[in-house]
């Protein structure tokens, strides 16, 4: 590990300006200068005229929410090659935990009235623990079994949320307290943007460490990984639980931002499919691909929805076809396109520099 780092360093160490130090520091958490630029642009968008309207702010929030989910999802599917088909149920579990802990309404059994600021972390913890247990039980199975088991557990969780009407009001839904007293969307945007950064940076640090190396080994060939002394189950369970915990955290945000929660709108399999598609079109195994795709995707979908009001669902069909096309013809996704373009530009620059002047 160390030796490879040392090998890379000398080239960078020759230039020691402030900019280089910054780039290196950001590179360690997985943010390139271009990525930083885009993040800064997204961060100031809510204050720039065409984007500071409330409905566009809601799109930005939805984009960040979807992107953050895609990061947590890709951490599992892109690295250890396990598709967590119960992902939406984990989001829902976090959302319901937090919403129930924060509940003060008299018509429900549980009335703790815990602050949502604490509740969302408890929700993350609960989802993480459930993910840990589920992972311990299912991740010794082969990929497709693990995926389908997670799916079944997700269906069961959704059924529970639907049926425990004393606790959750079932399909009538909950109306959790919002995080802030204000109805302004801008603070919420910065909260979810912060969560997105937190999740991305944390997961990136994990994947850049030796643990991430083990993940990649497991994802590529589990038997070879086992032969070289990695305990695949341990790493897979850790990965799965971490991803579920972040899913739960995002669920908590969802509950306390939208202020309404039904099993159908958050725990349904189609929600998992949405996250899956964004993560895959964005590019597997990169973490950032999903984020890069989520924002334009939400804008595209919402724009189509508003302009094609007479054709409900056309945007979803287009989206599904795009997903199929990407999966068949360009499995590398958006991030693959980026890396290809980057390589092209680099080789062009190199050739220009090599040419005698």
């Amino acid at each position, binding site marked *: 590990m160390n030796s490879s780092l040392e090998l890379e360093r000398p080239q960078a160490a020759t230039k020691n300006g402030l900019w280089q130090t910054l780039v290196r520091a950001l590179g360690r958490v997985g943010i390139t200068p271009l990525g930083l630029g885009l993040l800064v642009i997204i961060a100031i968008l809510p204050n720039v005229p065409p984007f500071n309207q409330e409905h566009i702010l809601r799109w930005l929030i939805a984009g960040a929410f979807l992107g953050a989910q895609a990061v947590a999802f890709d951490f599992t599917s892109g690295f250890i*090659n396990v*598709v967590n088909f119960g992902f939406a149920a984990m989001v829902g579990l976090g959302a319901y935990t937090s919403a129930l802990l924060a509940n003060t309404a008299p018509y429900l059994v549980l009335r703790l009235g815990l602050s949502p600021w604490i509740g969302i972390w408890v929700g993350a913890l609960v989802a993480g623990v459930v993910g840990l247990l589920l992972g311990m*039980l299912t991740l*010794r*199975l*082969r*990929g*497709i*079994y693990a*995926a*389908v*088991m997670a*799916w*079944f*557990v997700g*269906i*069961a969780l*959704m*059924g*529970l949320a*639907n*049926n425990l009407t004393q606790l959750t009001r*079932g399909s009538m839904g909950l109306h959790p307290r919002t995080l802030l007293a204000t109805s302004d969307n801008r603070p919420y945007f910065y909260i979810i943007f912060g969560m997105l950064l937190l999740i991305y940076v944390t997961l990136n640090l994990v994947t850049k460490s030796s643990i991430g190396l083990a993940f990649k080994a497991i994802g590529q060939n*589990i038997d070879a990984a086992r032969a070289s002394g990695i305990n695949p189950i341990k790493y897979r369970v850790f990965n799965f639980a971490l991803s579920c915990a972040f899913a739960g955290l995002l669920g908590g945000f969802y509950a306390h931002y939208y202020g309404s929660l039904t099993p159908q709108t958050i725990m349904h*399999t*189609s929600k998992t*499919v949405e996250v*899956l*598609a964004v993560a*895959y079109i964005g590019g597997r195994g990169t973490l950032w691909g999903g984020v890069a795709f989520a924002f334009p995707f939400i804008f595209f979908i919402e724009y189509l929805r508003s302009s094609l009001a007479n*054709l*409900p*669902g*056309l945007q*979803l*069909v287009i*989206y*599904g*076809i795009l*997903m*199929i096309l990407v*999966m*068949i*013809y360009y*499995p590398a996704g958006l991030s693959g396109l980026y890396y290809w373009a980057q390589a092209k530009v680099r080789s062009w620059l190199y050739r220009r520099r090599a040419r005698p002047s």
Partner: protein
Amino acid sequence: MSSSTIQLPRVRQLIKPSSHKNTPAWVVGLLSLAVAVLIGVKGGPAQLVTTLVTGGMWALMSVGLALIFGVMNIPHFAHGESFMVGAFVAWAVFTPLNGYLQQHPSRFLSTVAPFAGIIVAAIVGAAMGVVIERVIFATLRHRTKEGWVMNAFLLTVGISYVLTNGATLTLGPDYRGVPQYWDVPPLQFLGIRLTVDRLAAFIIALVVIVTLWLFLQRTSTGRAIRAVSQDETGAQMVGINLDGIQTLTFALATATAALAGASLLFMFPAYPLVGLNPLYYSWYVVMLVGLGNVPGAILGGFIVALFQTATQQFFGISWINVVPTAIMVIVLLVAPSGIFGSEVKGIQEQ
């Protein structure tokens, strides 16, 4: 290798899993028997008849799913959409026919009309299967080197997404059903009221399953299908057209699912998401018995239907997804490759 004669494995042993020393199978079997007795005592024989009818249909759906997984190694997530298409086609064919029959009553025609809808649904289902296989899976097969099972699975997720949303887009979210196919009074025997529709659905399921079984066992094409499911390379070596077999299998499976959707139109009115529950149930079945295990899937259909009837009887209808799922999860933890086991190579892929 001292023996000079080569022991040929008996075909029967290859298809039929050995039932002796198979504890999970015995436990599930005895449990199902106990549940059946309980249902019979509490709900009366009528509940058992319901179980048989729905069980036949889940068996039909699951056989298709098991075939697709066994032969093509595709964990088919869009199987419910074939059910949905079948239901819509049957509705589109039967409703105008029924309207015509209201004007011009004819005993013979009103007996035959529902079959017209069901058969057209099966044909459309088969055609859809051919198109999907040729356009999507054949392309993917020629482009994928590794990770086929997972890629195919995600692709079927995409297909399901497109088909359900496409149906919503073109047909709207409305329910389109028929109150009953055959407008005749229900049969009465042993104190059971059994509508002709249910009886017909059960008979259709049985006939199709038996036909399919005979086709797989007795015809050369059926043998080729089984050969591909056992060993693709070996099948190619003896001159089996792999592409043709895979397209045929996929078309057969979608046709049976469409047939199920059409036959159950009186129970499940057609709407874009109608396939979701049948999809869950057929997945329960194939996971319970072992992925790709075709004979197991037939039995499993009835076991799952039994669990569902019991859940409905003892817990209420809203728990119908929860309790069977919980049972399934427990069974799979004990017997990860299903109670009858699975011999499909695709599950070895991580």
